[in-house]
């Protein structure tokens, strides 16, 4: 899947926040989404680079990938099951 052309249904901004807030916000956002929808997460914490992919692949959800963007912000994409 081409991450650059992906159209996320919802975006969560966790820039500046560190563990565990990015994960909590991700979990909360996923709860409110429908099957097949895509969640985008923005984050700057280096810890998220392991946490979000691990968590994103749990409970049948699919972790689609991550892209390092400008100003040290990483974009993560998860598809809700």
């Amino acid at each position, binding site marked *: 899947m081409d991450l650059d052309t992906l159209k996320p249904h919802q975006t969560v*901004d*966790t*820039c*500046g*926040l*560190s*563990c*565990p*807030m990015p*994960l*909590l*916000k991700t*979990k*909360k956002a996923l709860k409110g989404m429908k099957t097949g929808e895509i969640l985008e997460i*923005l984050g*700057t*914490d*280096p*810890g998220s680079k*392991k946490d979000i992919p*691990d*968590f994103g692949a*749990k409970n049948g959800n699919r972790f689609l990938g991550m892209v390092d963007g*400008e*100003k*040290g*912000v990483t974009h993560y994409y998860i598809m809700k099951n």
Partner: protein
Amino acid sequence: MGEDGLLRSLKEQLTNGYRFLFVNAWSGYMAGILIAVLALMIFLWNGMWGISGGYRNWGEWFYYLIGLGGDRPATPWMDPQSVTNLAILAGAMASALLSRQFKARRAPLREYGKGLIGGILMGLGAALAGGCNVGGFYSAIGVFSMGGYTMMIGLGLGAWLGLKVLLWEMENLPPATTTTGSDAESGWSVVWQRFQPVAGGILGILLIAAVYLYAAVDQARIGGLLIFGLLIGLVMHRSRFCFVRAFRDPFMTGEAEMVKVVSLSLMVYGFGSAVIKWNYIQPDTMGVYHPFWLGSLLGGTIFGLGMLLAGGCASSTLWRLAEGHTKLGVTLVTFALTNAAAMRFIEAYHIRHYLGKGLYLPGVFSWQLGLPLFMAVLLLWTLMAGWNEKTEKLVIF
């Protein structure tokens, strides 16, 4: 194969080695075993490994310098726990630089507030429990001081409470404003990105030189602690070793990995220290002073709540700060100041008497029963976490 091929092979091997150490994340299990071995080395070399004692030393210095009395504290670069802390910080910073992960990281204002309160709670909790997540829990269990177990229960309670607070915050307060783009993609930051590993290498060399310096002035004992601390800092940073996760994740995502890592680590630590104590290489009650049970339970609960708010315990505050998280700098300051003040208060009013006293596990249950019991508790913890990972029965969110 000519000289050219040899050079290319050498370069390739160096690149692979660098990738292995500083690009790929280290496995948590490997880190757990390494940390247990290093904790045992510290135990053999000097005494039980702890962290809050070093924070207390720094807090005492502040009070001493502003004229709040007390005897002159030990010089920070001569106090054993202060030296291991400084070494963890420096080792983690060299590691962060070598991995190109060092960056001054600002956080939204509310996060600094949480860091400040978290530090106060951890400083207070560590004073009551006779140690932090390392000295009061990890090392305590590792050297068979029973206060470690009551602190463990307290840390679990505190983490549960802290997670509730974070959830409440997320549901009820507006999202904290973010500070994206702390520095623009200027030419300078590109240069810095390239230069980081060099800076890390230079820092590493200076730190090794400092070990020689200690030896040259007849302080090899302190120099040894510097080495062990540097290695702990490296291992913790590269594996992102976080005791908080062992207590928080079972309630948050159900993840059991860190519980398994800490359990495994403690098994190595415990069997190592059993051998050392059995042979009286170190006195068998060395490190057994944690107030069982009120002090360590109460202290553990307060500490657990604090570590959730701060987003770091005594050890991960050090390596996260070394990576540039300014929020944890605030935590470190309030932790040190509160811990020193609370220790003064506890001593002045003879409160320790009410908190409990150090109990030696083999002293109570004998070695024959004590070691199986030690193993049983860790296995039970692991099995429960594994069951919870499947069923998510304990997950509160």
